[in-house]
């Protein structure tokens, strides 16, 4: 019975169905429970939060990743699945403390001051949430000061900055400098991205990582996370 629920959770992640009203990928799914209904029900049937996350949600996401690589899934499919995972995580969040589980960590993301581009940043947020991170999205056109304040208050493990204009790229350096001035630089890993940004640029401003797309964003964060632990 619990096994059944795990595979149902997996399936709803693969289908990208958040609630019972979602269509999903295949036909005839409407009406069947989505990932939120399943996750709400799961602890009652004796499933540990750990299992729900690793076997159900991450297990589902793994399959989605494989389908994407095989060309069977497209980005919109991937995003739907990621959103399903993040909806499930939201429900599970209050129980983390109780069950003493370490979440994968918190990430603050923002598009820098004077830059209104946010499609890429939003995709990155959704995918990171889907990968199990707690993402706090500050939005776009965000003051350097606001970003620094958020780091001070929220104490995230990661900070993701996005910039799409060559004229706003420099704001990323400003953020890093102000974090240093405020003695906050060491407590957060900074990753940057956006079309004009490059690996070299990331190094030159002293960021910890660069992601060319949403999938790299996850990979870089995971790398940095394991680096932190060791």
């Amino acid at each position, binding site marked *: 019975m619990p096994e059944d629920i795990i595979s149902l959770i997996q399936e709803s992640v693969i289908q*990208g169905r958040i609630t019972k009203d979602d*269509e999903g990928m295949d036909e005839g799914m409407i009406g069947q429970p989505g990932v939120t209904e399943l996750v709400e029900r799961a602890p009652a049937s004796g499933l540990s939060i750990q299992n729900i996350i690793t076997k159900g949600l991450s297990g589902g996401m793994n399959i989605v990743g494989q389908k994407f690589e095989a060309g069977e899934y497209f*980005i*919109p*499919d991937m*995003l*739907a699945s990621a959103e399903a995972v993040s909806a499930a995580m939201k429900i599970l969040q209050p129980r983390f403390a109780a069950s003493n589980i370490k979440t994968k960590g918190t990430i603050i993301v923002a598009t820098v001051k004077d830059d209104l581009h946010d499609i890429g940043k*939003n995709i990155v947020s959704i995918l990171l949430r889907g990968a199990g991170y707690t993402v706090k999205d500050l*939005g776009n056109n965000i003051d350097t000061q606001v970003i620094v304040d958020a780091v001070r208050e929220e104490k995230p493990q990661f900070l993701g900055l996005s910039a799409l204009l060559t004229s706003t790229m420099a704001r990323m350096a400003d953020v890093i400098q102000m974090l240093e001035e405020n003695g906050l630089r060491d407590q957060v890993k900074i990753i940057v991205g956006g079309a004009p940004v490059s690996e070299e640029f990331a190094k030159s401003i002293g960021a910890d990582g660069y992601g060319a797309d949403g999938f790299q964003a996850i990979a870089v964060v995971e790398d940095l996370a394991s680096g932190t632990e060791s």
Partner: protein
Amino acid sequence: MPREGILVDRPYERLTREQVELIHQVSMQILTDPGLISFNREAVDILHSHGAAVESIAGDHQSWQVKIPEQLVLKALDTAPRIVKLGARNPDNTLIMHGDEPRVYFITGSETNIWLDVDFPIYVSKADPTREIRVPEFKPRRGTVDDLCQSAHVCEHLEMADGYIRTVNIQDRDITEDNKDVNKFFASLNNNTKHFMSGLTSLKQLDNVVRMAELVAGGKKALEDNPIISFITCLVKSPLQFVDDTTATFIEVCRRGLPVAVSSSPQAGTTAPIKEAGIIAQINAEVLAGITLGQLVKPGTPVLYGSVPVRARMDTLGDSYGSVETSQYNIDCVQMARFYGIPNYSTSGVCDTKIPGQQSSIERLFSDIVVAMSGPQYLHCAFGLLDCNSVFCLLQAVLDDAHFKMIKFFLRQPRIDQPEMEAVLKQIRAVVTTPQKLYIGYIRPLLRSGEISGIYPFEGSGETDDVFELAYERMKELLARPVEHIDRETTSRIFEEIPGILPRLNIYERGS
């Protein structure tokens, strides 16, 4: 279930109604003065017995001046079917053409002498010997029966190819005028289950190929109901002449009631006036004369209004299919045919250049798009043809298939109606309230429904152009995919009853 083709809801037209009527009037005037010169006696007799004025012309070859009155043409247009069905070995590949419905079918063509092989030799950079690139090289050679089999095979799997016209002229040593027709028909029918259209090399072979079609279709009656083959005859030689042998073939095909494209291919500048008004009035007269003859031979026999107008190339006076005017002429003819309500056979996609590449892509795509937009029912020539129709390249045909997919997608009708509007209004209102303001979630239900066009299938990666290589891979893939051949029993009956088919074409007897 016939093939769908693509219905062009609001076809592109160049001519106003007044212009169409004016062309019709002038065509009628042309048919009475100067009229037509016929080198074929029987055609003269038939037309004469129905009221055409006939006068013998002195000269080496017997010929007659024939003046066709308008009533005769109008009567023929009355008996010519508005709907022509082109059957297929696989009934799912049937084509139904309504003269007044601009539903486009994309079909291959036509008989080129040269087959273009492709190879990808590796070149090393002089500046950087570690850098290697593969460059496509094209090698022309004369076409063979084997090539025809390959072409029919690949075209069977080309999703957009709605029908098949033999793409290559078979010139093997053991092919003669007497066995050419049976071999080209067999090679094509055996490797392709779509409708097959062809010209006839020798009238003597007509009964043999019709018999072959009967055997494949399952009998005389079956062929009548499901005409898996049709013919194209260039009975007209521009300006305004009925050729002796092709007219004889045309008359015999009409007698048998099989569908036939009445085709004329005037060249603006040499065999027709260079001006649009002139070539259209002339070709229209020529095609109507052919249709009239056909309907007099057998009222109600299915005909296609076959128009292959081209402009001359000014440096060779060969056909310039790549010229912009060629597309204009074809579009005008499509409109004329629709005016008469007769399904149209038109041409696009042939390029002037000799090899696939930039020029080829631009020339063919240009005419493919604009002519398709005008809504011809039978759009021929479109796959793989190069060098003003002298060269066929299978790789190019594979590329063309991808491009037709884009064109077909483009021609779909927009869906804008009340329920659709209500749905999108709901979407808009929902999305703007979300923090991310993205509609991505709404893509999904459409992603696999065919409602979103695909990425270009031969897109390479990085800074190299891999289109040819990827298309070549695709071509090999399609060649490796099996086709449904004619069954063993029918094959042996065909070989027993019909003389002249090369034994090596019998897949069941190979190697023995």
